[in-house]
């Protein structure tokens, strides 16, 4: 049954995967709509690769259900495979083959008619910057640099123009220029393809992806657009200010008396007082603080809203994850 326009391209419900006694994916559910680029973000061992492998129908899940383009990954595996392009984490290739030979072989496996194979290979080579240098297509795969192997892997995935692309850490091991090029390429794919990619690096995923799914310990800990996540994750605004003109505790009490201000922490900074202020709800108390200072004749040398980063949140998750795993192994 092909997906109707409204139904998601990838639909995952209560997916669970045990490797023997190891729980790698713990009851996760999410969906990816047509044309979205979704970033799957998580620390090492979070279960990213495992989830992606289940989506490609390479691994069977222990429990739950997943459909890709409307087809069940287990029951309709062949239909799923025809509609996906999957690039595994390590980009495994047959070392003894040449670039063109390999891509032509993959095109044949992908059921591209013989007459069209050459054109398909040329098209993806062009797109993945393999047409230069001139002899690139004749080189042996085991003699390519990491970045070029990655390009061959990506070219392979695009050969049959599949509606769904599943990329496991597509930018790992690339130099900054290549990372940018890869990112642009992936962004450009969104028009025709639905993409799900995994990464450890938040900054990168934020730039490429319309949606993020943060996974740790086999569970989804947060999901949404990066804007939504920021809102949810970061909580109320924090204001930092440094002022003088009264004793620190007096300053803290005055500022703390404002309606929009919640908790206030005090720190001395030379003869200045540094206040770290948690705002109530979504309010921004900066103008109120400024007016207070003007009225009481306090001097302000700093007044700023701290933009807490998603990065902090992500690092914290990663950190918790790592301490948990070390606890377990101890």
């Amino acid at each position, binding site marked *: 049954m092909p997906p109707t326009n409204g139904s998601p391209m990838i639909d995952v419900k209560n997916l669970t995967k045990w490797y023997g006694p190891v729980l790698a994916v713990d009851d996760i559910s999410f969906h990816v709509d047509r044309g979205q680029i979704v970033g799957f973000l998580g620390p090492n061992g979070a279960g990213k690769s495992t989830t992606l492998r289940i989506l490609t129908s*390479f691994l069977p899940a222990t429990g739950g259900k997943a459909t890709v383009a409307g087809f069940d990954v287990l029951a309709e595996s062949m239909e799923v*495979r025809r509609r996906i392009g999957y690039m*595994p984490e390590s980009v*495994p290739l047959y070392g003894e083959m040449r670039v063109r030979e390999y891509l032509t072989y993959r095109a044949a496996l*992908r059921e591209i008619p013989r007459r069209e194979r050459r054109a398909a290979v040329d098209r993806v080579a062009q797109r993945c910057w393999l047409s230069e240098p001139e002899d690139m297509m004749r080189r042996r795969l085991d003699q390519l640099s990491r970045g070029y192997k990655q390009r061959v892997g990506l070219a392979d995935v695009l050969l049959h123009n599949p509606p769904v692309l599943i990329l496991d850490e597509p930018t790992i091991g690339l130099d900054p220029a290549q990372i940018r090029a890869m990112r642009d390429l992936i962004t450009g794919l969104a028009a025709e393809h639905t993409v799900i990619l995994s990464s450890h690096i938040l900054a990168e995923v934020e730039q490429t992806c319309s949606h993020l799914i943060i996974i740790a310990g086999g569970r989804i800990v947060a999901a949404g657009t990066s804007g939504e996540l920021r809102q949810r994750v970061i909580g109320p605004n924090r204001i930092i200010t440094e002022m003088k003109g009264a004793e620190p505790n007096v300053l803290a009490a005055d500022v703390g008396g404002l309606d929009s201000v919640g908790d206030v922490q005090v720190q001395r900074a030379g003869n200045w007082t540094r206040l770290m202020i948690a705002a109530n709800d979504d309010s921004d108390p900066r103008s109120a603080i400024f007016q207070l200072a003007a009225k009481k004749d306090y001097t302000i040398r700093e007044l700023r809203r701290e933009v807490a980063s998603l990065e902090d949140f992500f690092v914290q998750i990663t950190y918790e994850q790592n301490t948990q795993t070390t606890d377990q192994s101890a």
Partner: protein
Amino acid sequence: MRKTLIIARRELAAYFVSPMAYVIGGLFLLASALWFFHSIFIPGRQASLRPLFEAMAYILTFALPLLTMRLVADEVHTGTVETLMTAPITEAHVIVGKFLGVMGFYLALLATTLVLLVLMAIYGQPDTGVVTMGYLGMVLVGALFVSVGLFASAMTSYQLVAAIVAAGICAAMVLLPQAVIATGLAPWDRLASRLSVMMYVKDTARGVFDTRGVIFFVTTSAVFLYLSIKTMESRRWR
């Protein structure tokens, strides 16, 4: 069928650029040639290829497992199995394709032993019937050993383990029935002679066409190919 041939072609091409395959092929030829000059190519003796075919069967017991050990094990070890098995292709396509690929290389290897035949012809006229049957026997016993090798390679991701397991199974199929026959215990000796790889090889080496032999090799090869497919399928559930 088309996909099987795609796999077969890739596998065959891989052998032709693999130094390992040439080393193994070279050793096989060397061993066959040594045997040939040592015990057959003796001027004045009657020209018979019989011992050569028998010796080749023994050599293949160890040479073919070395050729087949990488087939599935290496795909799993390097991870290419992930790209392979996420393409629209079944385990049966892969196993049969790989089987045909190795058989292609093996036939090429076998063809090179025809050189020995030419040498032989200088001294005496080898019987065409015997030669044809002998080579048919070599093809059949090769198919069986290759299937065993594939099966062993599908069981593990360690090539060396695959080679040892395959050589073990092949050697057992060659030696065990002979040992049982040697005991002369009825009815086991008769049964063993029906299951003896070497008995059938000796038949063909004498130029005798035995349908039972053909059936034996074809069915045992098919069984091991089937087991390879099932083993490869089960990998996903382990």
